[in-house]
């Protein structure tokens, strides 16, 4: 295993930050030269000040000061609940549909039709059904994250080589154990892709769900700031969601690698 770690030497790690660095530089240039006025794009140092007040300030000191952890907790709870529901439904249904023609027949038309409906169209219905609050957001997140998770699990399960399952059968592996010992590990690369896509989409739909007048959460923060014309807060919100989204992706990958050999040893 050591050989693989050696490949990730320092210059490669720095490469991760090259593009963000360039963006920051361009942002600085645009603001310093007056190419974009502050009401369209605030200066990085103002955004930094706002961010620090939002993250670490005392509540009541300024508008939005110190609200970050409350917003983060609210948003993270919604994302994790919605994503969790999508995983619980998406992986088993996807794997079944990938392996059993009958299940596939039963599900594929419906799911592919529903998939064509943009998530935002569900918003009014969700509000009627679940009212304003956590349920609507969780519903939207779960719905949106379900499709990539389901589709990738289905694809992964379908593409598992029959030879692998035959090899298992001849070594005395019955169906149930074969599912966990062979089918799922063999489909793992696709399943992971689905989970990562689903996690990304979860954050996107979180913002959508929080547009609907909930008092807290990162999406609510952005909508609130738009109404008050606080561009700097919007930018802070966007950057925070990007950072948290990336952290979730890394965390998800790490958790999977920690729990499954097949995630650790993708060829």
């Amino acid at each position: 295993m050591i050989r693989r770690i050696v490949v990730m030497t320092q210059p490669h790690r720095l490469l991760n930050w090259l593009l963000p660095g360039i963006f920051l530089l361009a942002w600085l240039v645009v603001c310093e030269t007056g190419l974009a006025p502050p009401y369209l794009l605030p200066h990085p140092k103002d955004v930094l000040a706002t961010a620090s007040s939002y993250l670490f300030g005392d509540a009541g000191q300024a508008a939005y000061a110190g609200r970050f952890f409350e917003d983060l907790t609210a948003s993270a709870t919604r994302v994790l609940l919605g994503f969790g529901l999508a995983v619980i439904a998406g992986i088993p249904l996807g794997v079944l549909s990938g392996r059993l023609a009958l299940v596939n027949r039963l599900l594929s038309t419906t799911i592919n039709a529903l998939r064509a409906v943009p998530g935002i169209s569900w918003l009014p219905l969700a509000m009627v059904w679940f009212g304003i609050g956590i349920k609507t957001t969780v519903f939207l997140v779960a719905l949106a994250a379900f499709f990539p998770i389901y589709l990738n699990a289905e694809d992964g399960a379908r593409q598992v080589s029959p030879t692998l399952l035959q090899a298992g059968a001849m070594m005395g592996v019955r169906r149930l154990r074969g599912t966990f010992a062979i089918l799922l590990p063999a489909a793992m690369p696709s399943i992971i892709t689905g989970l990562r896509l689903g996690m990304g989409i979860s954050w996107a739909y979180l913002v959508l769900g929080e547009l609907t007048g909930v008092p807290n959460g990162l999406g609510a923060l952005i909508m609130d700031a738009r109404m008050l014309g606080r561009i700097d807060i919007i930018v802070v919100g966007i950057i925070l969601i990007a950072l948290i989204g990336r952290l979730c992706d890394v965390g998800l990958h790490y958790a999977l690698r920690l729990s499954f050999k097949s995630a650790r040893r993708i060829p």
Partner: protein
Amino acid sequence: MKPRLQIISAEHRSAASPVVLDVEKVSKRFATNGSGNITVLQNISFTVRRGEFICIVGRSGCGKSTLLNILAGFMPPSAGAVRLNGRPAGHPGPDRCVVFQEDALFAWLTVKENIAFGLKGHAMTRREKEREVDRFLSLVGLTDFADYLPAEISGGMKQRVSLARVLILRPEILLMDEPFAALDAQTREEMQDLLLRLWSELSHTIVFVTHDVGEAALLADRVLLFDRAPGRIKEEIRIALPRPRQKEDDGYYALCRSITAKIKAL
């Protein structure tokens, strides 16, 4: 668990050893798109005695691999019966193990874990299992590669793992589906030597499918020559060449030439 090591040399594998595999009038038809049936195998009958090395030779598309799949239990015959030690051979199981042509190792398991895979659920202590795995690792010469992943070893090594993971289960019969066809010439020869060595040490019963006449002449006690589609046994050739056989030997050449001529005449 004591290894059932039993050394039987070619001379002792007489016609008196018991029949392990009995294939009786096996046929296989597949439904084609709209236009009815296509017969792939027709009335195949033969028996294999304990410790025998049988090669099935024929042109590609003659149903050799289909027959092997039926023997393994991966698909049922359309007619006829396959019996293992007198009992109908049903679902696939560790009594009839297959070494596949393509890479069928579990990519997420190390060499060692792949070899140990079939032992899960066996009534053995962890230490006994480890000892068995180590023994088979060394039998196929992979002791130093125990912790490598399949993606990190060569094609020849992968087939060694494929061999070890089924030999460790002590199958009644070992089914091999062109296992060395994808290897380069030199590796193939090494693998043939290895297989013959393991066979003489562990005295397995082997049914080996190949399209390589030279390979069949080198390995087999008996060659079943398959006719073109639909597959039928055209001829059964008993090979009396003494072992170990040499590829430089005149008798070996003559045999290869005569089998090749027979295949061309099909």
